[in-house]
């Protein structure tokens, strides 16, 4: 992630995936080194100093109560254990049920034992047998399930994903009680060993897409998978495109409804969001509450989203084009007020618009990075105080402020932020095209964007489906309007 400094510092790193040697407590200790959070506990059976096994765990990740009461206590006090003569007998007793635990595995490989310790499991190493028994006694530290902080909806479920992947899979399982639901576990990240779960339904998910997703994730060779960017880059067909091709959501219901539509879901351990592929254009205009509202209201809101997307994309460029090249298109009363507002402003309209768009981006970025309480202050200072002062100082014209404000507000109507970000980039390009060639430039820019989106594919699915490549079918089905769903109706109804 932040690898750039390595080039300058010329620090040599060795890869830590080459764990060689037989499974023994000494080798485990050597591999893990002298890290202070590693707990190593020698358990002497019947107080015999020559008869011992070693327990490994990571402080903070293992639940010490479970380990003490259900793993160590039987080893110290159970009569059968005390009668055991050697490690083999003890190993058989442990695996046969002296230590009863639901999730218990036997490993014979040093690397697997080390991986288990790093994942927060408790490992009992039997040196003479070169075997280990792994118990899942993890302490589920982390946030509890909360409401989605960034995707709030008035209606519908209020459960959001958390950082713990197992909690997330259980949330999905709770909603989709289907025998077809599958979780495919892949561990990526040479250093981070991040667990990734590919979620799908065996009966409806396209096998080609699923296989592509799995193979692309398995090919990730990065040292760390802490952020989602590596995952997205691995999955995306169009790596240099700034249009989103993966839908992410923190809402469990949205994730599940996409899985039920046959899409492939991805969960990453440590990230409180779920990823849906393939992400196509139309998906980014859908919001969970669309399906809870009356279809007429939903359709109106959906239509407004498309309208606002068009508005935010075109309005600044259109303003530049008509005020610089096609003045006769402006109604007479409006041109009078535009001229009046522009009186005394030294900059050309193009510079004004570009400057305001950049100022808007700066304000947006500044308010995102600050705590919420200060963020509001930035909006007030940036939007009201500086804006008003700039207008009064004749640095920008009020008409431009209005245009950028409308475009900015329309931008926030879009429910998916990455798409909104892409539109903001396109908006800048369209302003530049309009400033070069007026409405011709604007039309040209729009044509290029539409062409680019039309030919784009995500995991073999056209990006603009169902508007393209669907033989005209279902163009208005759950797109610009939300038609009443027949789901839940009997066939004969």
């Amino acid at each position: 992630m932040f690898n750039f400094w390595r080039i300058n510092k010329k620090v040599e790193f060795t890869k830590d995936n080459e764990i060689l040697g037989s499974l023994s407590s000494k080798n485990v200790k050597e591999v893990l080194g002298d890290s202070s959070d590693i707990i190593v506990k020698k358990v002497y059976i019947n107080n015999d100093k020559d008869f011992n096994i070693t327990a490994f765990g990571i402080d903070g990740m293992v639940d010490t109560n479970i380990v003490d009461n259900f793993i160590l206590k039987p080893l110290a006090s159970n009569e059968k254990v005390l009668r055991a003569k050697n490690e083999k007998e003890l190993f058989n007793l442990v695996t046969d049920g002296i230590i009863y635990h639901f999730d218990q595995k036997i490993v014979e490989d040093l690397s697997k034992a080390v991986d288990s310790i790093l994942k927060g499991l408790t490992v009992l190493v039997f040196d003479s047998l070169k075997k280990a028994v792994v118990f899942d006694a993890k302490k589920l530290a982390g946030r509890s399930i909360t409401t989605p902080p960034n995707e709030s909806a008035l209606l519908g479920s209020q459960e959001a994903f958390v950082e713990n992947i197992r909690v997330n899979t259980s949330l999905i399982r709770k909603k989709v009680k289907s025998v077809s639901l599958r979780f495919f576990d892949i561990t990526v990240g040479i250093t981070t060993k991040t667990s990734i779960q590919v979620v799908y339904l065996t009966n409806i998910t396209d096998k080609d897409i699923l296989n592509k997703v799995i193979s692309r994730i398995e090919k990730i060779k990065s040292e760390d998978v802490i952020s989602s960017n590596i995952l997205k880059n691995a999955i995306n067909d169009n790596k240099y495109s700034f249009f989103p091709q993966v839908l992410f959501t923190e809402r469990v219901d949205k994730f599940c409804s996409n899985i039920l539509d046959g899409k492939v879901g991805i969960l990453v351990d440590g990230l409180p969001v779920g990823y849906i592929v393939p992400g196509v254009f139309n998906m980014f205009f859908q919001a969970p509450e669309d399906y809870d509202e009356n279809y007429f209201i939903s359709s109106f809101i959906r239509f407004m989203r498309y309208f606002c997307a068009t508005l935010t994309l075109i309005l600044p460029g259109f303003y530049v084009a008509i005020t610089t090249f096609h003045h006769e298109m402006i109604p007479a009363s409006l041109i009078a007020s535009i001229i009046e507002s522009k009186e005394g402003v030294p900059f050309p309209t193009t510079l004004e618009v570009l400057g305001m768009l950049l100022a808007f981006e700066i304000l947006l970025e500044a308010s995102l990075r600050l705590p919420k309480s200060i963020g509001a202050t930035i909006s007030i200072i940036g939007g009201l105080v500086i804006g008003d002062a700039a207008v009064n100082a004749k640095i920008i014209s009020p008409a431009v402020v209005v245009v950028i404000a409308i475009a900015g507000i329309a931008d926030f109507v879009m429910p998916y932020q990455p798409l909104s970000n892409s539109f903001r980039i396109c908006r800048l390009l369209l302003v530049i095209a309009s400033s070069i060639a007026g409405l011709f430039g604007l039309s040209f820019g729009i044509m290029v964007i539409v062409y680019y989106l039309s030919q784009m594919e995500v995991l073999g699915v056209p990006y603009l489906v169902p508007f393209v490549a669907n033989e005209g079918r279902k163009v208005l089905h759950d797109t610009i309007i939300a038609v009443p769903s027949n789901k839940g109706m009997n066939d004969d109804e």
Partner: protein
Amino acid sequence: MNNKTEIIVFILFIFILVAWNDKIIPKRLEVSDLEPVRVIGLDNNKENILLSIVRDESTDKKEGEDGNSQEVVSISSSNFEKALRALQNYKSKQFTGGHIKYVIIGEDMAKNNFLNAIDFIVRDVELRLTSEVFIAREMSASDLMQNETESIEKISDVLNNLTKNINSFSYSKEETILDILPLLVTKNKSGLIPTLMPAGDNKYNTEWEVESSNKKESNSVLQFAGFAIFKNSKLIDYLNLTEARAANFVNNLVSNTVISIVGENENKNEVSLEIISSNTNFDFKFDGDMLTKIIVKNKNKSNIIQMVLQDEELSIDLVNKFEEKLANIIEKEIENVIKKSQELNADFLNFEEKLKIKHPYKYRKIKDNFESIFKTVPIEVVVESKIERSYDFIDFERD
């Protein structure tokens, strides 16, 4: 290069080619460098022509400065195009004709050089064919505009208001450049173009008088002054307000107007009727292929909006009498305008067009002689008026 790259390179090449081509892309001009013109006046000026515009001076004024904010700029030249170009260099800002909404043509130009004026507007790519045309009645366009600049009201706003409320009296109609083009391209074609005059001038308007505490103001606003009659692309005569309304009755352009009749009581109190709808149909009578008679049938509906009764009730008989009187007034008005049309031998009421639509085969046989036929053909006017409401507490009831 793969296909995608080739397409992108080709598209970019086209874009660059077009973007730097002045013939395709309009000239880059900041909106703040422009001064849009909304009203122009076209006049004859001895041997030359005179192009006048009204410019808003409010942008030149300092804060707190009060008073007239309009300036009429007139340029005299041998032709309009030269005048227009000269005008663009007159001030620090460039005048733009793309927003011209009203074209006022002076009487002299309308009489002697109307074709020249319209030709200039039609050929100039910047000017709009949807601009509305007015004739300055018995004065030049620049004088009319000059008169208006004494008012604090902007001439374009006044014209805007006039055209918005054109139906309040139905004394005029909206005519765009596009509407009057047939007048120029068809031989012997006649038509009507609305006229304007200063509001304080009561020469052609005896129906009302405007008074304002600001004496200057009451004399400077504009009002309709009937229609100018055009034949063969020349102004030949005018219709006053009542005649203009009658012409509108014939052409089904009356949607609302007020007509007063004399009441039936001893004091002969005036009764005002508001025409709420009017419809005129035409019946053409033939003897063989010969047009022998035209019957103009008008049916109108009205409400009583002002009436003073003395010791009498509003009975159905009284209403019938009102209806009869109203019908007679409208009949008389229409007859007068038709008479004028026949006297001038100018079919500005478009009987020829109506005949062509209703009897296309018979029209084809007489179309070459229509002008002489129209001059002598008897035209009968039949008007049927119906009063709908009296707005009395107890309304009258018909059987």
